[in-house]
């Protein structure tokens, strides 16, 4: 694929898309010179066709769900139904100003209210707030609520949040943002939380614990009820990181497991798009104890009229998390998806994502790849460790990942969770056909064969991408973060 110039390099002085701006300059004389910009910003000077062609060509350099199998563990890269997008982009939704009165937004607010209700039901929580903008902000809201709960009771000796070593990086980072120390506990050899270590860690200093279930090692935490009792008896609360909810949607509910607050990545389980890095939505489900601290705004209903609940309605709220009410357009997409699935469809998500993962795991195991927890059932994802390949053939998980790109497969998540050496975390999702799963197995086998014959070949991959491996050290050392003009 040929290199695509920067948009700046395509420009000519004085060129711009004339259909897109007023024909005349307006009179700005009443703004005193001291407030006025002296020199125009450096911007592209291109035509509309140049813009369309450039960004269309750039798009073609991306892998995406729409073009490739994308088994990125922990990220739930499943089909994003097109109807969710087109219906969320109806003019009545797009043109509505966030400060427009509730009375003029009943169509929109009704969707959000119904979504809150459905999410509360499917997770077993008392109420849901749609305010958080992504998983990490949901985590923040949840842990801030845990803090508000202890503070409201004058219980101020609780300084620690317990986090398993396998946890996603956002968990410890969030605990710190909420003013807590992080206490890490190990994962046992069977993949569950190490109960002895947990017992040791829990105490009067425990504010709460953050858990993912199924965990980030791809198995269901079997002793979850025991853990809940242990933490609750010590006066701590339980936070559920819902990144893996896809595995149990409708089959098992975090509320029934004993969690006090949860987040749901709607951009995973409810199939709103990842958009090359967002926007997401990190709806939170709230249990009885934390209800008074629910973040604002939240949609309420009164006699068939929907309205935004604010601080007046929830005086002990942790407050607002953004200027408005959350990623509304993402929530509309999730609503459309949830309605199309319905009750049975939701449960099927869990069933078929689990079937696909267990099938793929079994096939890879049969081909001689080392499954990390072979005695366990896979949830919607599982880990293989390429430690053996690294030792015997000299090719790492990272090398496999890069070569997979050449063969048309997006790489699984590599080197996460941190505790498994040379790991690939593989999540096929329920929307893939068995033929695509077989194709992936074949690709893995092919790469291992290639490595046996010529390891340098695999280590040099990818070859068929727009670029070969990139010099990341140079990127970080000789920072080049913006176009500096033609000279550069």
């Amino acid at each position, binding site marked *: 694929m040929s290199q695509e110039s920067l948009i700046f390099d395509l420009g000519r002085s004085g060129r711009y898309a004339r259909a897109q701006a007023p024909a005349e300059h307006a009179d700005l004389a009443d703004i005193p010179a001291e407030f006025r910009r002296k020199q125009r910003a450096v911007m592209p000077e291109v035509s509309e066709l140049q813009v369309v062609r450039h960004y269309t060509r750039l798009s073609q350099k991306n892998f995406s*769900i729409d073009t490739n199998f994308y088994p990125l563990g922990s990220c739930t890269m499943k089909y994003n139904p097109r109807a969710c997008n087109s219906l969320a982009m109806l003019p009545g939704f797009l043109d509505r100003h966030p400060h427009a009165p509730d009375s003029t937004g009943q169509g929109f607010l009704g969707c959000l209210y119904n979504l809150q209700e459905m999410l509360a039901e499917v997770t077993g929580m008392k109420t849901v707030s749609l305010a958080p903008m992504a998983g990490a902000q949901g985590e923040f809201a949840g842990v801030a609520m845990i803090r508000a709960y202890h503070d409201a009771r004058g219980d101020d000796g609780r300084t620690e949040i317990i986090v398993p070593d396998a946890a996603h990086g956002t968990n410890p980072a969030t605990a710190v943002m909420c003013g807590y120390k992080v206490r890490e506990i190990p994962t046992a050899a069977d993949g569950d939380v190490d109960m002895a270590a947990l017992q040791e860690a829990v105490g009067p200093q425990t504010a709460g614990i953050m858990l993912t279930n199924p965990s980030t090692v791809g198995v269901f935490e079997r002793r979850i009820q025991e853990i809940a009792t242990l933490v609750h008896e010590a006066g701590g609360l339980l936070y559920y990181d819902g990144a893996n909810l896809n595995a149990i949607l409708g089959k098992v509910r975090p509320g029934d497991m004993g969690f006090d607050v949860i987040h749901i990545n709607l951009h995973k389980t409810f199939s709103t798009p990842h958009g090359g890095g967002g926007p997401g939505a990190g709806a939170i489900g709230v249990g009885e104890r934390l209800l008074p601290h629910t973040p604002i705004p939240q949609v309420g209903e009164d006699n068939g009229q929907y309205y935004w609940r604010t601080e007046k309605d929830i005086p002990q709220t942790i407050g607002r998390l953004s200027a408005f009410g959350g990623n509304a357009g993402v929530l509309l997409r999730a609503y459309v998806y949830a309605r199309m699935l319905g009750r049975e469809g939701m449960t099927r998500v869990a*069933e*078929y994502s689990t079937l696909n993962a267990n099938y793929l795991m079994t096939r890879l195991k049969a081909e001689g790849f080392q499954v990390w927890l072979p005695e366990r059932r896979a949830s919607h994802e599982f880990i293989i460790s390429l430690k053996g390949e690294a030792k015997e053939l000299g090719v790492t998980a990272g090398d496999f990942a890069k070569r997979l790109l050449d063969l048309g497969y997006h790489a699984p998540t590599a080197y996460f969770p941190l505790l498994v050496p040379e790991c690939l975390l593989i999540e096929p999702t329920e929307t893939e056909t068995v033929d695509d799963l077989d194709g992936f197995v074949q690709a893995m086998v092919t790469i291992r064969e290639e490595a046996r014959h010529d390891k340098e070949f695999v280590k040099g991959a990818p070859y068929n991408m727009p670029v070969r491996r990139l010099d990341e050290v140079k990127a970080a050392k000789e920072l080049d973060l913006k176009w500096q003009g033609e000279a550069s």
Partner: protein
Amino acid sequence: MPFIPHTDEDIRRMLAEVGVDSINSLFDEVPSDLIDPGLPGIPEGVSEMEITREMNERAASDMLGPCFLGAGAYRHHVPAAVWEITTRGEYYSAYTPYQAEASQGTLQLIYEYQSMMSGLMGMDASNASLYDGGSALAEAVLMAVRANRKSKSGRILVPDTVNPMYCDATRTIVGNQGITLETVASNAETGAVDVETLEQWEGEDIAALVIQQPNWFGRLEEAQALTDWAQRNGALVIAVVNPTAMAVLTPPGEWGENGADIACGEGQPLGIPLSSGGPYFGFMCCRKAHVRQMPGRIVGRTVDLEGRTGYTLTLQAREQHIRRNKATSNICTNQGLMVTAATIYLSLLGAEGLERVAGHCHANTRKLTERLAGIKGVSLRFDGPYFHERVVELDRPAEPVFQQLASQGILAGYPLGRHDKRLSNALLVCATETVTDADIDRFADALSHALAKAA
């Protein structure tokens, strides 16, 4: 089964391979009292045709007429090409570009975005986005406290001319980290901050001063003098700015002698539809010295094995997936698709087009407020230069008038009394380039009608 491709034969074959007789057996590690709760509260699924009918009805019921509301979100013309391209599957359904070789499209686009945003703000560097303007201010405050090594106080000065919703979000987000936000009172006549007011903090340990330009009341702050005061006193300057306005106003990088340290704000005006408040995106730029304290993704240009230009996420040692509890922020997923739209928007308009749009926003607001000021019972509240928002004062409480005009399909501005009782009669009005003379006539007529009856 919606979106699940399995045939009965597939299922049989897959179960046989796994060695179980039913899908339910795959859940045999789940404690039996937790499994299959039943979901009586969730309705049966519907077809695409049925949900389309429902959503069309809902969307139609939300349609409104002319919009004179701003207060943090602005109705601008969005070129058709912006969302046609942005919703291409290759952008729409890709993940965060961790696998650089398979994400050069998104990565180069972010690099171009960083270039445009840095240019517009007059700053050295930009990140790849935060959630929105409000949470961006919170992140800027945390960043300033980290970056200002000389300051130990965690005290941040925030004028009462900063968007109150941004202040609320910031308080929620930074509240548990020993940071205090201290309010700076603005001049009640001008609706802007007097530099003299800051003298009470002279010589004290202040980590940063926040300056919003244009401010919450639409007024232009004396950003030059305020910046110089702050930096003379060892405080960093956090600029909160409207990106459209930066086409015609002095950008943060040129404030005072040294320029602002951090610039952030709401990216929505750059090609993002209003859509009830989101998704939008927060932007953040800074000077070179602070880059390593910036939260969020950053893309750098580098070369590949063959020396060809390529793009990759860089400085990842700031981020949660590497640094965990020592990260600059917990942010992971941000607002990438919105940045895609903004980049295409800025490319289409260029500096020339954006300047024209900004100019028309200002001229329309001037036209609107001069017209409204001619109505009996309406006066202009704050004196001094403004961009595309202005405060008008009614002879009675503004909230009921706002509701009344909304019921006629006119969004008559933002009732400022919601945040400050002293401004109960005030409306913050805005007219962007999308407002026509006929819209202004309609608003003026409806308002004079509403005010004709005795208060």
